[in-house]
């Protein structure tokens, strides 16, 4: 069974159709990269998966469970039921969106702490739970190579370090699928390497990931599957080596030619 199935997803903003009948699926432990020019709908697709946008129609299914059937869900319904369902997904933003008033470690711990508070055993196990959450956060940050930076505030960190904190934060709730929205686009070129290395490390450990990126070499090397989007539709998809070396569609060829030296 695929971990994620997306069927006939449609989304428009006013008159503009941004996603037109998007369908794809992916298997657990694989990395999918989505490429395409700006405005092709990649980011909107990720935002729909994370329920930051409500699709006009379509179905999102994770592990066989239908999280969203947009045609049947009303707006209020969408808001109410969505909170815990979105925990199936993690999202790393282009602009990090770290919480500035919290240290790196606190950023990673916050959501897990909020969720722990909702558990019935929170009161009696409070100290132990906080310790567990802290240890988990520390482990994640160490994993990101940030053991010396845990108690720094975001403004004291470089862009690459911020993005690695954001990745640790997204991993803290153990999402089934981790999504990256152009994770290196806001970084200076010399800082993209450290972030890409971390994502590559996650891929090596078979983390299920969807990566929207403009780093073509990275997409080709890391992804198990690639989707090329153009004007809101999936224009071409397949094995990255195939798509990159031998694109079938004229539009894909055009797009990729901008990246080949």
């Amino acid at each position, binding site marked *: 069974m695929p971990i994620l199935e997306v069927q006939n997803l449609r989304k428009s903003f006013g008159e503009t159709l941004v996603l037109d009948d998007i369908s794809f699926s992916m298997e657990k432990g694989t990395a999918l990269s989505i490429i395409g020019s700006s405005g092709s709908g990649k980011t909107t697709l990720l935002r729909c998966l994370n329920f930051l946008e409500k699709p006009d129609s379509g179905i999102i299914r994770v592990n066989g469970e239908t999280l969203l059937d947009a045609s049947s869900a009303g707006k209020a319904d969408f808001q109410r039921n969505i909170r815990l369902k979105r925990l199936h997904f993690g999202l790393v*933003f282009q602009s990090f969106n770290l*919480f500035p*008033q919290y240290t790196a470690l606190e950023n990673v711990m916050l*959501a897990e702490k*909020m969720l722990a508070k909702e558990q019935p055993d929170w009161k009696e196990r409070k100290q132990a739970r906080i310790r567990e959450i802290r240890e988990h956060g520390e482990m994640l940050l160490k994993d990101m190579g940030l053991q010396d930076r845990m108690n720094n*505030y975001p403004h004291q960190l470089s862009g690459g370090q911020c993005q690695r904190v954001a990745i640790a934060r*997204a991993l803290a709730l153990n999402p089934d699928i981790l999504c990256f929205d152009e994770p290196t686009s806001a970084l200076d070129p010399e800082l993209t390497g450290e972030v890409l290395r971390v994502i590559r490390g996650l891929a090596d450990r078979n983390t299920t990931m969807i990566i929207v990126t403009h780093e073509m070499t990275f997409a080709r090397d890391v992804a198990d599957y690639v989707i090329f989007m153009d004007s809101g539709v999936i224009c071409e998809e397949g094995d990255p080596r195939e798509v990159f070396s031998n694109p079938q569609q004229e539009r894909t060829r055009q797009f990729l030619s901008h990246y080949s030296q």
Partner: protein
Amino acid sequence: MDFSQQFPIVFASLNTGFLQTLRLFAITLIGAIPLGLLLAVAEMSSFRPLRMLIKTIVWIMRGSPLMIQLLIIFYFPGLVLKNPIWGSGETGRFAAASVAFVINYACYFCEIFRGGIQGVPVGQEEAGLVLGMKPAQIFFRVKLLQVIKAIIPPMSNEIITLIKDTSLARIIALQEIIWAGQSFLKGSGGISGAIWPLFFTGIYYLVATGILTIVFAKLEKKLSYFR
């Protein structure tokens, strides 16, 4: 009476007046901050008529002189409606002045709060949402401190203006410090024709605004650990 004899009399009278100034200042803050927050929330409502209503109120209260608002609120019930709700005497004048100041300042605060809340980048809310946080958790745990940090400079501006604006209540004869200082011109406590007490009131305002400046600088510094 020479100056050294005048001074203790004037000093006592100005202190009493300044106490009334401080009372009006405190009541205005206590009333206008929550009311301003309420107005700000209403102004961000998705219900358009409510938004328009708040915008109109804010426009009127910010767009007309506080002195006129004081006069209308104080005199309108008694002289026009023939229903003197404020009663007579200092208590009534204080009540009327409090109402005028609270409404007027709530409108200024409302705009500051709204700007502060809307100024938090939308990415903060989205980051909280994708982490499964509830809207209330996002507001209190993520946004609130950022809002407070953002509104401290404009709030300190308004609050420093407020302490000086309380002198406008002199127009309805509230016995605040300007009234007290002026009374020695016409004659009070055996002193008349003395202009210096009125000038001397300036010292009180300077001390008060000096303290406020220090307090707000401290607050700003306390929140400077993040950007």
